């Protein structure tokens, strides 16, 4: 039954006041009923405009149809044909600029909540699997015996039942347990793509970096018969998903699960390996014996403002702040890694990174302001994050540009000097350029400043790899975007290292494209 409501089914979220004090997930996810109702808003358009907006071409109406038909597990398998990390994308993709932007329902009213449905299908899948495994582990033999008797009673007379003894029943029960276990391990296998009798490897591939680009590429190549090792500089895999995006937006258990699945499927993770230092790309291709390398090292180098006071105590790059909080778990009481718990914190920037930093600072107990040089309408962050930040009491100071970080006699931050701005002419990207209002400045008091004005690729790999060209932004130059091929034979690149800071789904798309190109490259070698 079509649901003609103009609004999306609301996403159940935790109370803003409560959630702003802890790191538990904010959005709780749809119930089965919510999901079916939202799915029923989809018109199953034949021309599928939504799919055109999805960088990896998820069969959107098809998976939504499964939810309409209550076949949630099929919905999950349908998404999986195009997207290997649905639980993650359902949570962090900027759907409003992608699939949902083109949804027909969005012409009048809100588009279908495609992201929310994607998340629902993924969560349902992992929940039902967990429940199944849990159920088998918990079932007592006596319960099974009772069930078996109940089954038998349906089909047989009392006199027949009297003829079978307890032993037979036990045998039947044992058989049932065995079968149930088989079914579960089958479905786990199908989920993690576990191949027990792997044919001889078709080749060896080294993947540098374990963010979404690296994970996707490794998963694809592994399924297609290649031996893959991921080299990760940090002690924990996941890239930005692990060190950047906070627990309350993307639970780390999900990232861990995805990495574990790959590990069980045969991908080797070598953490604590800084490529360019521990090993170089050239060594991977020669002495280490890899046939090809996929560079997916992200854009991890934080930009600073280059204004006075930036080296003061209490000034963090968003990367440092978020790494301390998320990766090193500095928010936990008794954590070894220290973090400054600000009283009043100003975050500079307007993207997802700024929102995440602001909301983490809030959760550490600070009053938080976000300073951005344009207006709310231009904030590049996902809409949902801006909304959540506002609900949590974060104050948005728009049309402000920082001029100087003010310090006390101990070089600690005491405030920020801001230039007031207004929107002027339209710039090359079609946005109105912020221009300073002559003489209009103001001071804002704070004891912490977090700089979230973008990141660039880390030069470490390019500078240690002869023949690997970069562009003027420091991005690894990709010769052919559809393959990720670089200027160096056997070396492919994709994700933020090639594009500059972008999105999870674009990184995944690049990982997938590079995987097929690497497959071709190795087979033709």
């Amino acid at each position, binding site marked *: 039954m079509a649901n003609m409501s103009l609004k999306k089914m609301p996403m159940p979220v935790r109370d803003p006041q409560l959630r702003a004090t802890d790191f538990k997930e904010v959005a709780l996810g749809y119930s089965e009923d919510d999901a079916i109702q939202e799915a029923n808003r989809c018109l199953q358009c034949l021309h599928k405009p939504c799919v055109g907006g999805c960088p990896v071409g998820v069969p959107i109406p098809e998976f939504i149809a499964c939810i309409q038909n209550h076949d949630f597990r099929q919905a999950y398998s349908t998404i999986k044909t195009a997207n290997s990390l649905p639980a993650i994308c359902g949570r962090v993709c900027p759907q409003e600029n992608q699939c949902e932007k083109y949804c027909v329902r969005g012409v009048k009213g809100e588009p279908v909540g495609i992201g929310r449905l994607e998340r629902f299908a993924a969560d349902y899948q992992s929940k039902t699997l967990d429940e199944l495994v849990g159920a088998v582990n918990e079932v007592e033999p006596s319960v099974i015996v009772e069930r078996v008797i109940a089954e038998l009673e349906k089909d047989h007379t009392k006199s027949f039942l009297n003829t079978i003894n307890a032993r037979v029943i036990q045998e039947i029960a044992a058989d049932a347990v065995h079968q149930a276990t088989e079914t579960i391990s089958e479905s786990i296998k199908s989920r993690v793509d576990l191949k027990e009798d792997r044919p001889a490897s078709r080749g060896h591939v080294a993947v540098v970096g374990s963010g979404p680009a690296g994970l996707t590429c490794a998963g694809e190549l592994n399924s297609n018969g290649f031996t893959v090792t991921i080299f990760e500089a940090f002690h924990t895999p996941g890239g930005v998903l692990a060190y950047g995006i906070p627990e309350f937006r993307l639970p780390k258990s999900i990232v861990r699960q995805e990495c574990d699945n790959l590990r069980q499927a045969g991908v080797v993770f070598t953490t604590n390996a800084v490529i360019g230092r521990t090993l170089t790309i050239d060594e991977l291709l020669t002495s280490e014996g890899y046939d090809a390398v996929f560079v997916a090292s992200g854009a991890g180098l934080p930009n600073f403002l280059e204004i006075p006071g930036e080296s003061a105590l209490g000034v963090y790059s968003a990367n440092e702040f978020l790494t301390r909080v998320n990766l090193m778990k500095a928010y936990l009481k008794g954590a070894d*890694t220290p973090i400054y718990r600000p009283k009043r914190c100003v975050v500079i920037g307007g993207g997802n990174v700024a929102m995440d930093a602001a909301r983490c600072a809030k959760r550490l107990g600070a009053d938080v302001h976000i300073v951005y040089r344009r207006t709310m309408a231009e904030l590049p962050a996902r809409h949902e994050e801006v909304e959540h930040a506002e609900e949590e009491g974060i104050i948005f100071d728009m049309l402000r540009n920082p001029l100087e970080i003010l310090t006390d006699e101990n070089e600690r931050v005491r405030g920020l000097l801001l230039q007031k701005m207004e929107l002027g002419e339209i710039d090359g990207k079609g946005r109105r350029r912020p221009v300073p209002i002559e003489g209009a400045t103001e001071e804002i008091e704070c004891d912490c400043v977090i700089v979230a004005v973008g990141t660039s690729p880390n030069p470490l790999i390019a500078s240690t790899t002869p023949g690997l060209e970069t562009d003027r932004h420091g991005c690894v130059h990709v010769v052919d975007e559809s393959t990720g091929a670089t200027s160096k034979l056997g070396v492919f690149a994709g994700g933020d290292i090639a594009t500059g800071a972008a999105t999870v789904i674009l990184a995944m798309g690049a990982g997938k494209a590079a995987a097929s190109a690497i497959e071709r490259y190795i087979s033709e070698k």
Partner: protein
Amino acid sequence: MYAIIKKEQLSEGVFRITVHAPLVAKKAKPGQFIILRVTEDGERIPLTVGGYDRERGTVSVMFQVAGATTKKLAALKEGDRLTDFVGPLGRPTEIEGIRRACVIGGGVGCAIAYPIAKALHEQGTDVTVIIGFRDTSRIILEDEFKSASTTLHILTDDGSNGNKGFVTAALGDLLTAGETYDDVIAIGPIMMMKAVAELTRPYNMKTTVSMNPIMIDGTGMCGGCRLTVGGQTKFACVDGPDFDGHLVDFDAAAKRNGMYRDSEKADYEHACRLLENTEVR
């Protein structure tokens, strides 16, 4: 996991551990460092590579018990394993072409200075070493420095080894006496390095210092280790840790290192309580 093959105590609260880490051992050069974690969820701390055996695949580091993490590290025994050990990080010290060098170490900074002195000595450089400690009981690596130098000056603040004074005074004497060096390499407390740089400045003598700001990743992704060098922002973990001593803003660096002093003191006291019953040899 990275096994501790050997553990030695060098002096009160100063230890050397040799760790099995073949990939790091293969690559490490003097002046580079590693980052380790003692436990899952532990802090990442940087320590300088003190030595390596490429064949056995081992790397040694020397450390002083300074806070919670180094305290936990000191409580480990041979055969125990570290959760993480990553490196080698940073740029190696540039030693090529140096004919005469003066290597100056203060306190546990000597642990960082020793591999550099050794490498210089091995390539045939005339190496003058000046190392300073609070008192005799704190002198470390005496034999090692002896075999890695042409001339060795060991000083103590209290004169308990019969040679009272600060390393800067010793350097000052040598400079006034007309000694010249292609590079004066100073490693130790920030204020010591600053004093050395001030001494050599009038002579326009190249001076290299090794900066140890607070770090997390050690790969250039957080900017926490940033320093002002010649008016520019530099990341010590990738641009250093060695810098031109005449360009470093030491005062700002000293302040940044005190960022977490209060909370770390609490951590340290906590770790002390936790480890009360553990023997720290």
